[in-house]
């Protein structure tokens, strides 16, 4: 029920949006736990990719920009697997209509989908990062701060991914359209994340010189795309 406050953005609207956000997020996580459609595919993709790099490059250890590139490219393409599927239940099972019929602000759907994607990415990284370490790292000292860089990267992937996934949701060419639009938009995230990660994965241990600038770029990108997604999402959601 839309309360009178909602039209004016009063406190009632925030409370209700929060309830809708938790309902949609809980639904998505419950369905994922039950069907295991997104996260296992992401993890399998990442581990397989590391194996391919391990034997394709014929290297037992990686460091610096090469290590950062292997890790981030793998996370990026694994993320696209989830981003492509993010709105499939809403499109195929009428979820968009059901949510639009309810007195729910579109931003609740946006935030819930972004949060679900972040959960998927964190689970992926919780598995993929140790595997990456075992396959390629001589020293693990940079892994803990690397998790922070990956979290900032996940935020950027989620904000941009949700928006592009929503745009492509009703297209039959979704599998082509989403990467085609998404990858160029994510270039700044990948540049900033790679520049941060290569310092943390440097041979002989992490080096923190100049990393602050790249983390700031990552954070700025995250904030910008979260705001853009919030601003335009209702228009994208409507017919």
């Amino acid at each position, binding site marked *: 029920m839309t*309360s009178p406050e909602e039209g004016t953005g009063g406190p009632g609207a925030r409370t209700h949006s929060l309830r809708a956000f938790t309902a949609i997020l809980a*639904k998505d996580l419950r369905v994922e736990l039950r069907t295991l459609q997104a996260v296992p595919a992401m993890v399998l993709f990442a581990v397989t990719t590391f194996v391919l790099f391990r034997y394709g490059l014929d290297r037992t250890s990686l460091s610096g920009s090469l290590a950062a590139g292997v890790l981030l490219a793998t996370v990026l393409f694994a993320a696209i697997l989830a981003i492509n599927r993010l709105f499939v239940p809403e499109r195929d099972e009428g979820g968009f*209509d059901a949510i639009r019929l*309810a007195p729910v602000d579109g931003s609740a759907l946006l935030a819930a989908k972004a949060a679900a994607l972040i959960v998927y990415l964190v689970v992926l990284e919780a598995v993929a990062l140790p595997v990456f370490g075992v396959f390629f790292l001589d020293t693990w000292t940079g892994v803990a701060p690397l998790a922070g860089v990956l979290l900032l990267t996940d935020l950027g992937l989620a904000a941009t991914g949700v928006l592009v996934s929503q745009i492509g949701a009703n297209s039959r060419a979704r599998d082509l359209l989403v990467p085609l639009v998404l990858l160029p938009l994510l270039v700044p995230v990948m540049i900033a994340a790679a520049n941060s990660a290569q310092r943390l994965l440097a041979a002989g241990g992490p080096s923190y010189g100049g990393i602050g600038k790249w983390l700031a770029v990552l954070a700025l990108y995250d904030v910008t795309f979260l705001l853009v997604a919030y601003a335009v999402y209702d228009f994208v959601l409507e*017919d």
Partner: protein
Amino acid sequence: MGKLELEERTADSGSARRELADAVELSGVWREFGDRPVLRDVSFALARGGTLALLGPNGAGKTTLLRIVATLLRPSHGEVRVLGCSLPAQAHRVRGRLGYLGHEPLLYRDLTAAENLRFQARLYGLPDDGRGRIAELLDTVGMARRANELVRNLSAGMVQRLAACRSVLHDPELLLLDEPRSHLDPEGASLVEALIGRRPDRARVLVAHDIEGALGDSDNALALAAGGAVAYSGPSTGLSVGDARAIYGGAL
């Protein structure tokens, strides 16, 4: 819908107009998909508590019209007022006050019947996630024992019963029904009727191909053919079954 919230709304400024306004008013509504007009200059009014039968052959634009009233589609031209609110500008004030039972059940296949309804109840902000209301509705349509089955394992008829529960879960003021008895056997249709049937405090727009049944269950009728309204009857001017059949045959 919570009665308390409804009372709060009606106490708001402009409430008098909302109380007096028809449930649905359409004036000169057009809807085009690309260059193809699907609805052409459709107008009608439905009083609160009344039922409008929406008739016409396949492709006449009935579902499109229903989706416009449900705020799921924007009209290309024309004026649409639902429950006293102008669409699409005030769609956010209407959502939550109408129920929609369309061709798609709007249920997640990998959730159980009860989980689907609880999800909807949370979206609508029902107290205690609507647990009591959900139990009551499932019992009414004979699905209490199947509440914990995944929707993907239910038959089409059971899914339709569940969709009917979803459409009235929040006790809407306006019910939009697009062939609500499809997939239902006589027993299922009878059970669902208890949820979606006439009530003096609820207006309904009813799309049905059972012409006699629809006309008998309505106060007004609007017949569409190829997107245009070919016949509209108010409470005092009846649309005969013969006329309606002629519309399906393209004779009118």
